[in-house]
């Protein structure tokens, strides 16, 4: 004997996305998580790509300063660069070196977007050396240790520190915490 079946109801939540397995549902990340994710990626781009390019703009002054110091230490050395090619490798070396911490930031941001609470914890920890690096770089840019245009240094420092702080605040918004609590369990 057949039973009376209830009327099938359409899915109430339109934002749910089925996983590839089709068994579990995962809500879309809230705007705060998306904002934090994009800000972390922007910070990575600003540090890994923009900073070496920024250093390239002051390479002429750096070359002249190094050769002036060499000449002061040993007057036999002429006060002129024989080959400046080595100096132009410095930003490339810096870029390769900065790819190591960049990988940690990108991995943490992707975990955060997936809803893994450990990603947020790791990013909060990475924010400490990150902000310290921005402050140290700002000191280097403004004190003459690194030769760059002052306006470019101001823009780089403000934008990098800004996106870092925004990302840090956004991933601790209540909606972000609720998303991590819901998906992470």
């Amino acid at each position, binding site marked *: 004997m057949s039973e009376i079946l209830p009327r099938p109801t359409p899915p109430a939540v339109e934002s749910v996305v089925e996983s590839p397995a089709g068994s579990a549902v995962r809500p879309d990340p809230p705007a705060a998580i998306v904002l934090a994710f994009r800000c972390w990626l922007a910070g990575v781009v600003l540090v890994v790509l923009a900073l070496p390019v920024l250093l390239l703009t002051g390479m002429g002054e750096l070359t002249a300063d190094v050769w002036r110091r060499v000449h002061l230490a040993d007057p036999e050395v002429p006060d002129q660069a024989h080959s400046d090619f080595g100096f132009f490798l410095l930003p490339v070396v810096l870029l390769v070196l900065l790819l190591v*911490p960049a990988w940690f930031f990108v991995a943490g941001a992707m975990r955060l977007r997936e809803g893994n609470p450990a990603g947020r914890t790791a990013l909060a920890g*990475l924010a400490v050396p990150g902000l310290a*690096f921005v402050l140290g770089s700002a000191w280097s840019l403004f004190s003459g240790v690194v030769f760059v245009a002052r306006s470019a240094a101001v823009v780089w420092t403000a934008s990098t520190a800004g996106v870092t702080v925004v990302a840090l605040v956004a991933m601790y918004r209540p909606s972000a915490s609720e998303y991590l609590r819901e998906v992470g369990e």
Partner: protein
Amino acid sequence: MTQDPSRQPDQPSRYQAEQYPQAQYPQAQYPQAQYPQSQYPAPYPQGYPQASPVHGGYPAMRGVDQRTVVVKRPVAVSVGSVFWLLTALSWPVGTVVRLAVERPPSSFGTIVTLFVTGCLAIGGIVGAVYFHNGSHQARLVLCGSWFVVEIVALGMLVSALRETVEAGTLAVLVARLAFPLVAAVCGFLPGTRHHFSGS
């Protein structure tokens, strides 16, 4: 109550069709075939409680055992976790120690070195925590990534030994080489396999 004699047993009644016009009756569309059950035995015992998926639990255990059975962490894993933490901290702390001992002139390279080693430490600490909690991926990733870092540490030690080196600097360079070796060996000692079998 009278029934329509022309209605088939799997068809809905008139009342059901009026109240639920869009309802799907899978019994009517897909009548269940009657297979001889004795020829197709179930792949697992039917009367036993099945393992329930517990996040972070051990798949070989039933759901109730996930909360009532305590799996003792091997001592080698605990020692390995401590050494992975020491390995992670040896890079930023070692950089600070070298700066205090050698007192080089302040430069942008020092700031970059502190930043890179600081991020390396954060990644190492996260990996050590996962290692401590029984993640076999963390065990492999820690060994693989630190193999690359060990090459850098070995190069730094060899270049430092070519000239006069301070005792503090030498201690830092040796510690960076020794800590991950001890941690990797501890993570693969006999008796540690079951700790990583849950992931």
